[in-house]
């Protein structure tokens, strides 16, 4: 195939005309990116809980029923 300088829009039109997907395949996050995202969720959650007004005398649950 002859290499041409196609713009992204032209390339997308070409793919659409050929019946192929017009989106370029999404890159799945790498394991390192997943771990960063997981740690971010963990710290976001911790920050939300830190905002909760917890009385100083509140003790941890030791019985796991109401």
């Amino acid at each position, binding site marked *: 195939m002859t290499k041409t300088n196609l713009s992204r829009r032209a390339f997308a039109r070409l793919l659409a005309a050929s019946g192929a997907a017009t989106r370029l395949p999404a890159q*799945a*996050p790498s*394991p390192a990116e*997943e*771990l960063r*995202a*997981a*740690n971010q*969720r*963990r710290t*976001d*959650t*911790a920050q*939300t*809980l*830190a*905002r*909760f007004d*917890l009385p100083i005398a*509140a*003790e*941890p*649950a030791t*019985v*796991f*029923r*109401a």
Partner: protein
Amino acid sequence: MANEIFYATITELAELLRSGKISSLELTRAYLDRLEKLGPRYNALAALTAEVALRQAKAADDSLKRKRFRNPLQGVPYGAKDLLATQGIPTTWGAEPYRSQVFDYDATVIRKLEKAGAVLAAKLAMVQLAGGGGYRYPSASMFGPGRNPWNPAHWSGGSSSGPGSAVAAALVPFAIGSETWGSILTPASYCGITGLRPTYGLVSRHGAMALSWTMDKIGPMCRSAEDCGLVLQIISGRDSRDSASSGKSFYYVKEYGRPLAELRIGYSPIDFERADESSRPALAEALEVFRKLGPKLVEISLPPMPYGQVAGTIIQAEGSTVFESLIQSDQLDRMPDERQKAGLRAGLELPARDYLRAMRIRRLIQEKMREVFTHVDLVLSYSTRGPATGINEALDRQRDARTMPDFEKEKRGNIDIGAAGNLAGLPAISLPCGFTAAKLPVGAQLVGRPFDELALVTLGREFQKQTDWHRRRPEPAGKG
């Protein structure tokens, strides 16, 4: 064997077995055959336990022939989620690193069912490690994604995916599942069956894989509320081998159920507005059925608290600690689902102060829930916000919304009853209450006080006398 029998309730099967119209051996062989043929279509099967099943069926027939009737489960086959230890039979926890794991003992629940005369026909598939770490796709299992018998292009729900689909497709009359947060109620709702999550500590966890020591519960998944009551009676009770055992038992005595007119059911219109549009008609109809049954319906809302964040923190901390050696080994990479693996790894970084903060808020949540149940006897909401999701659909966006809601700003009604109920160790039942226009099941959940499973089962039974959703049958996969 006529197809009808596979859709019979436990009570109906017990009648057939006791009258001698069918033997347990015949019934068991028929279910084993059905499990073998149809189980793989739904990725429901972890393993057939044919040898054990035939031995137990013969023993049950001996007792039945001698008219030694003990309980309705005698001679009735069942399936067990593959996190319950079964002596000499692999118990995989749904995860590749544990494919060859074999315990030399039975979980207490399995022993109790054998003693009652029930017949273990199969180990049933599950989401790997019961979903610990937080999975993105239904395929997070060595058995593949659980397929919904109502539409195999949709998920059966998890993590008790095999029990959900096996009962819905009538591959077993009942199954034993487990729930830390949603793992009985979600597949019950998605698969149109009845699932009961007992009070924390009512059913022994001995021999069950732990995900969260302080939140794991083992419970029945059946074709009816009454069946759930019959199974719970057998599997509940004191067990010195479970440090969290409450010492209490459950007795399914219908006469002890409170008159329906005396019950107060709390609900919030916000839940019905926040439910997926496709589920709303069925949920609205369910509310009317409960109203007509006699209980007083009372509008209530849970107090605004970070239920999802607290539950998520506790499960992440405990779950990652349970699986610490797996996470730190190279075996973790044998599992699919990168998000789940990342969540497990991140859980090991969770500081003690964050876990303890969550546990302190948990105690406050427990106090609040006690207060809620001074105003009502039961809380009614949807079991899942919408029907079964697509088999390839990413689940984490929905789950993130559950664990990361803006509890300070939004009006949330009782949509956090799942997190709140599990944090407070409360029992709950999911009842099929209709279908969406796309013919996917819809589930309604009732949550009760600790150890008030009788209210859940008796109200569920009355609901199922007025409706027939629990009697509906999916078409077998591949037909039509």
